[in-house]
């Protein structure tokens, strides 16, 4: 029995999907319901395996997965929400059982593109806090950088180890049709502050191997479990030159933070302390943690706290999540903060359109990965175009994150579009617009059965002495039909991502 038949039975076919590409099938809409599916090569074995499974298998495995996730405590908190008993705010991240498969040759290109892009971004951050060559050359407008709220004057002239600022970069990638109508990977967004989600990449894989060992026998799936090792190597390689045996810690806002599980998980996997701001103090420009045996010096802080909360003496005075004096110790070169303070200046949506030019400027290379075409509302022509085409565009606040503060034109009501028009007119510099991409979809096991849902991919790029990553990353999936928003805070789920030697 083919999947297509199963889909028809489960009643997920009435609505013709709007997307153009699917990761599993060569043609869409799903015309295979009548003709038999055209399966892309790297999904063939999986498809055959799926066709052999009894009808209730997926539901059973999903139940099993949820039970295990609860017991292991892989949960995240959603701000302002309560569960049915009003007791807690812990929710499971929706995990989808159907893997997202990428053929190894496609990944090889993507990986080269990621190394290139992240290298250029790190060069850019170093440049804007030092010589500002790129501003003087007029490649990026000066005011775009210096008037950016994410630009940290405190970082000007500060030297950081290896000149690396973004040690951990989460680059969001989507697959969509290019002008030739072929599937191509585009960078949607760079996350250079505190990108999260990597623990789900690791736990999703563990879960898949537990639930479907036979699939891993039948496929050559590139492993990802060594990520914490690479991360530790990266962090140690970033320590101040003065220490041979650096003490690395993970700084968390605490157990009520939505990503707390990940902070605890990474600290445990690396075998380093998980600290909160209250555990740290600064004395004579060195950072220490309070231990049962007295103060112990800290050399590298993998912080999962935003810039604004790091040091109440410099940033928000009310913050209790950071540590007073931390920035002075940092500027004195006595401690490394990963990612560096002030990386936000490079991942802001207003800077994103310049990244391809950065790559050419710093590396003298053509970008391997393309940007999504972007209209900058600060430019007159782009603004006019955006306002005229609001109903077809995705409009984003340049400082927004987490899928908040955006308008998805085709899905919005007239009133919402008008509200956004006023907002954009009032502050054109605060917005960019992009065409609604036909994001690729992937078969996903939802309430109604197996149905296509939009996905993206976030590889985690590590920069220390070298730039490296584990194959693949975290595939996020928009579980709502037709939705393009994959963020976990807005009903997004995750999938295991397989880089497959075919």
């Amino acid at each position, binding site marked *: 029995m083919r999947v297509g038949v199963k889909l028809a039975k489960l009643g997920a076919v009435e609505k013709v999907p709007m997307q153009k590409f699917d990761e599993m099938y060569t043609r869409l809409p799903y015309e295979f319901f009548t003709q038999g599916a055209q399966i892309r090569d790297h999904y063939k074995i999986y498809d055959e395996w799926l066709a052999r499974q009894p009808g209730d298998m997926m539901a059973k495995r999903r139940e099993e997965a949820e039970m295990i996730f609860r017991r*292991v405590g892989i949960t995240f908190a959603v701000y302002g929400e309560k569960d049915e*008993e009003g007791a807690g705010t812990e929710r499971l991240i929706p995990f989808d059982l159907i893997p997202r498969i990428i053929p190894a040759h496609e990944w090889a290109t993507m990986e080269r593109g990621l190394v290139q892009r992240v290298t250029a971004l790190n060069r850019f951050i170093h440049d804007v806090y030092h010589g500002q060559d790129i501003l003087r050359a007029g490649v990026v407008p000066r005011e775009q950088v210096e008037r950016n709220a994410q630009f940290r004057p405190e970082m000007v002239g500060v030297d950081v180890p290896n000149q690396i600022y973004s040690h951990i970069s989460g680059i969001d990638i989507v697959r969509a049709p290019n002008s030739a109508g072929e599937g191509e990977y585009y960078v949607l967004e760079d996350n250079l502050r505190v990108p999260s989600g990597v623990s789900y990449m690791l736990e999703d894989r563990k879960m898949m191997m537990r639930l479907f060992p036979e699939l891993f026998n039948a496929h050559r799936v590139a492993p990802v479990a060594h990520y914490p090792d690479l991360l530790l190597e990266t962090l140690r390689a970033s320590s101040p030159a003065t220490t041979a045996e650096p003490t690395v810690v993970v700084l968390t806002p605490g*157990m009520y933070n939505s990503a707390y599980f990940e902070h*605890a998980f990474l*600290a445990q996997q690396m075998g380093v302390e998980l600290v909160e701001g209250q555990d740290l103090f600064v004395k004579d420009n060195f950072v220490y943690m*309070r*231990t*049962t045996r007295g103060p112990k010096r800290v050399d590298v802080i993998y912080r999962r706290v935003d810039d604004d909360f790091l040091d109440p003496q410099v940033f928000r005075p009310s913050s209790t999540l950071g540590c007073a004096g931390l920035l002075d110790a940092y500027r004195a070169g006595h401690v490394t903060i990963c990612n560096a303070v002030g990386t936000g200046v490079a991942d802001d949506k207003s800077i994103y359109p310049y990244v391809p030019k950065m790559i050419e400027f710093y590396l003298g290379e053509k970008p391997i990965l393309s940007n999504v075409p972007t209209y900058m509302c600060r430019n007159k022509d782009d603004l006019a175009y955006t306002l005229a085409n609001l109903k077809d565009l995705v409009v984003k606040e340049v400082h927004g994150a987490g899928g908040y503060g955006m308008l998805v034109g085709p899905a919005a009501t007239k009133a919402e579009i008008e509200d956004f028009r006023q907002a954009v007119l009032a502050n054109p510099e605060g917005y960019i617009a992009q065409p609604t991409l036909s994001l690729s979809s992937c078969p996903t096991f939802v309430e109604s059965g197996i149905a296509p849902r939009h996905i993206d991919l976030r590889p985690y790029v590590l920069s220390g002495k070298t730039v490296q990553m584990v194959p693949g990353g975290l595939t996020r999936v928009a579980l709502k039909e037709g939705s393009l928003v994959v963020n976990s805070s807005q009903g997004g789920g995750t999938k295991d991502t397989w880089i497959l030697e075919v």
Partner: protein
Amino acid sequence: MLSRTADHLFWMSRYTERAENTARMLDVNYQTSLLPQSEAVALVGWQGLLSISELLPTYQRLHGEVNVQKVMDFMVKDESNPSSIMSCLSAARENARAVRGTLTTEVWETHNQTWLEVRRMVNNGDFERDPGQFFEWVKFRSHLSRGVTVGTMLMDEALYFMRLGTFLERADNTARLVDVKFHAVQSDFFGAASEKDQEYDFYHWSAILRSVSGFEVYRKVYRDVIKPERVAELLILRPDMPRSLHASLNEVVSNLGLVSNDQTGETHRRAGKLRAELKYGRIDEILATGLHAYLTQFLDRVNDLGSHISRDFLVPSGA
């Protein structure tokens, strides 16, 4: 290790132990309530239970008269009562979650699973259907948590702080139990007059023993009928009785020795002194000076020890 981490570990174990002891006391009262007895006697038992945790005034303010079902609910399900089993198991799990990276996967999952299950059992009525089984379950989750801890944790500071929490809490809980139960019959402590009283005494003392899994131990150690002064001796002075004050203090002192450093001499001295008094104490002396006074003082000193441990290791002030 981080002071904050040690603090969470210490309290995680204290709350687990407290949940177990609450279950033990509830169970014994519940089992006793199934025996034929006067209403007044039964009430004394439930009142005593609330007094042990210093909760009688709070209970009376909320629920008025002491009533079996209400007391059980208050001590099992009421999350506004910080000593209820639900509250203790939640607090243990919250503390575990705060330091889950320091725990082995098995230890963390044990606490997490206990918490998930207790919520389920209380919400779906499992507890009301069979309170005895529920209490037994709580005890066994505590056994499991201790076993998993000893069986999987690296033998380093993390383990020592957990053990410290367990035994300090146990010393406190056993002392409270003895205090309240002996208080209840103080009037006719020595020399039961009538047959009826003797019968009552047997059930009273054997219930205390059972609540600390000590009934069989008593028989084995004394090979005698149940006598109050021997029950007191067993629960206070016997070093081989796992829930006695002496045994608990032995563990406190040895774990304290394993984590001690230059600044912790005074804490160690106080713990050692308390232990020495149990080691060389005699039950007739203790009874002669008054059991209640003795236990009140003991509880104060355990409390003081807790503050010292906290100051030395867990929340050190200043740099």
